């Protein structure tokens, strides 16, 4: 490989811009949490099912946040089931995006600064 190729930092002219990819992932996540989640299976998950069948599901205690405004993926005060769950999903997705993205921005390497 020639040195010019390396220093030029070869980028394909036609590649998809990062912003599009970011928007794409965000839109898909919001649609999954806000709309598709309504159609998710309501059956107990693997662990719950095993706990029921082997007989230790009753050892679970009441969740400390069980009365929270978004408990069990529903929005308190919103009666429509589809809207209640979808809203909770959208809020959760945005909260996770902000918290995880913010954390990653704090942790990241900053060009030019060697000290924290």
């Amino acid at each position, binding site marked *: 490989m020639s040195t010019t190729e390396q220093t030029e930092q070869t980028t394909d002219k036609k590649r998809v811009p990062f912003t599009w990819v970011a928007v794409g992932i965000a839109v898909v*996540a919001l649609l999954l949490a806000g709309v598709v989640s309504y159609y*998710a299976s309501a059956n107990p998950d693997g662990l719950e099912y095993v706990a029921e069948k082997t007989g230790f599901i009753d050892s679970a205690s009441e969740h400390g946040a069980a009365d929270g405004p978004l408990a069990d993926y529903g929005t308190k005060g919103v009666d429509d089931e589809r809207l209640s769950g979808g809203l909770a999903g959208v809020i959760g997705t945005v909260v996770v995006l902000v918290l995880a*993205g913010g954390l990653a921005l704090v942790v990241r*390497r900053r060009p030019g600064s060697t000290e924290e």
Partner: protein
Amino acid sequence: MHVPDGFLDAPTSIATGAVAVVAVGVALRGARRELDDKTAPLAGLVAAFVFATQMLNFPVGAGTSGHLMGGALAAVLVGPWTGVLCVSVVLIVQSLLFADGGITALGTNILLMAVTTVVVGWFVTRVLMKVLPKRVGTVAPAAAVGAFVSVPAAAAVFTALYFVGGTADISLATLTTAMLGWHTVIGLGEGAITFLAVGAILAVRPDLVYAARSVIAERDLVIKPKEAAA
């Protein structure tokens, strides 16, 4: 696989809590090497995607369902250290806001779904990528297998924890068989979702997939400034 409060006794929950704190602490240091101006927002997006996808329980038969854990997926997309952080944030939000996964079981859930799935998923993916031809096309299948294996692995860790500190008297053999059996089936879903998600990003921007960087490194050499030790 969100463990509620009360399944495990207090000493076990405290121990898993301590392990989780250490793991997240180490991940915070390690993630620094993986994250820059571009991958940091990507990490937020991957965490959001994992949260959204965890809401989608898929039926696995006999009245049971499963959902993505996402550790392997996050590790492959944004790196293993960042992957631990992404899934940990998801689990913390789920527990505190959505009452999904006990608050005293948060350490247990981080250990199972953020640490175990990332470690096992990443390890299996990397081993497969070493064995398979060095092509971008092998990344998604390798990730899918890593994701598949990570689910019964997390189930095995739960079973071990239950053996040590379970609050009910359950036969270990029964619990092991049931947990591993169901979670092997759920793992198929984990593998499929991981394959699709990794494949989709690879198709548009392979350079954004952390695990694919070693494969495309020869083609796209970028010299990074050496970092001074903290």
